[in-house]
């Protein structure tokens, strides 16, 4: 017999979360023995680089968009931000190709793959708006060239790459929010389903 407490939204959500992601899955202390390749390093490297991107971006945000043009410390923080982004994309692309050649969508992991791809695309947009927000010669040239592609798609009527304020808001608020939320979702899915096992030619039954 169910009680009022059992029927509460909060109780139901907690029990569902505990069922899907018990502590030993969320923070595992063992993993299957096949998880032993350098390719696995690039997932956690991408996450670490994302942390660096956000941390350095927060410092740049604290002092404002002009700071890094006029301060040597600001310029150094901008350099940290740039190189963290480069490492982020380098690791992310290798992670993506690695997961492709593992066919990591197998065994009910389709949404894990799809959230990863959308995170990659959102990150490209975040990177682009960052380049568009630099307020220097690079951003002038990049935006005046990129406008033609975006305008031709019809998106330029709403997403004006020549509007510095709009690009900066997308870069520091909207796209990081999307990228971080998708990354959290992606990682939780990995923890729920585990790392995809190797191909087994002998297996004849579905096992999930």
């Amino acid at each position, binding site marked *: 017999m169910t009680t009022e407490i059992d029927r509460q939204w909060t109780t139901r959500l907690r029990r569902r979360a505990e069922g899907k992601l018990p502590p030993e899955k969320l923070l595992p*202390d063992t993993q299957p023995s096949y998880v032993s390749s350098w390719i696995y390093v690039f997932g956690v490297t991408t996450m670490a680089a994302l942390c*660096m991107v956000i941390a350095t971006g927060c410092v740049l945000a604290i002092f404002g968009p002009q700071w890094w043009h006029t301060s040597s410390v600001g310029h150094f923080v901008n350099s940290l931000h740039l190189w963290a982004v480069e490492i982020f994309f380098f690791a992310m692309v290798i992670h993506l190709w690695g997961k*492709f050649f593992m066919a990591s969508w197998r065994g009910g992991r389709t949404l894990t793959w799809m959230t990863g791809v959308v995170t990659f695309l959102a990150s490209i947009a975040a990177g682009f708006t960052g380049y568009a927000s630099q307020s220097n010669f690079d*951003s002038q040239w990049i935006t005046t060239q990129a406008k033609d592609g975006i305008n031709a798609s019809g998106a330029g009527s709403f997403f*004006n790459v*020549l*509007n510095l304020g709009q690009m900066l808001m997308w870069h520091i608020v909207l796209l990081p929010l999307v990228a971080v939320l998708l990354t959290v979702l992606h990682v939780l899915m990995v923890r729920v389903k585990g790392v995809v096992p190797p191909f087994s030619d002998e297996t004849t039954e579905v096992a999930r």
Partner: protein
Amino acid sequence: MTKAFRPDVDAPEWKGGYAPYDILKEGTIALVVVALLTIALALIFSSPDEHAVTIKSWSNATPVDFAQTALSELNGTSGTAQYGAPYNTASEGQKLGPLALAKWAGARIPVNTVRDFVIDPLRALPDQPPLTQGLATWRSASDATRTNWVAHYTKAASQMTYANGQVVVSTTNAGPVPLFINDLTMMARSGALDQALVTQHGFYTTDYTKPLLFLSDGSYLKNLAQKDHLLGTQWGMMNETGSYPGQAWLWLYTFWYQVTPFSTSANADVQVWGLMMLLSVILLFVPFIPGLRSIPRKSRVYRLIWREHYRNL
């Protein structure tokens, strides 16, 4: 009852061994290594920050290019004047097959190059009796008269020079147009036009649409970009100034611009954009696409990734 096992969709249940795994330690080590690598790269290579081009720097460096561009804004031959959506309705814009996507989205960021780039900025100049008179003459003239003045000036402007602080064009019957082009050039060289183009809607601004469009209509910005290998034909979309990696992840997007039919197409921007959207959707839905989802199994690259596992079988 069991379903048939689909090797590109289903995964076998793992019945092998498990190894110790400290997820927090792994994350911490990765963060420290990435932080140290980032600091090292920043210290060694820094980051590019070339000063933005201003209308002032452009018109002082190449006054004739500026004046010719100002004339193209006045006679309607500039890139912006003929752009179409989202700035105006002067052209239909690029089409993706039968789809005029830009036109359908509409001219939601209106730019009138005669008014916004020439007449309104000149009106903002104080204490200029000849200019005030010229603007009054322009305002009271018919469209046909204005067109005739601009046409006379344009015809003679191929011989335009800049000497003794003046734009020199030998022309007659051009009405106030010579005065406009000369005064606008003087305004630009003083820096006043930079301000006039961004303060049309008040004191505060973060919108640089108009000065950037004006700049990109001239040759100066493009020539600087060419020196820094930033043109589209130089794989410029993924480059940045100096020898920095830039947006290397845009290599495929940039690649299409280098090959036919895109390199010679008048609709290249929308075609490449459409192709990349299609490829992105395909990447997203790879798990559902027969043939594509079999590539990992058939390529056998996984044997390299899990070589230790297969060796121990």
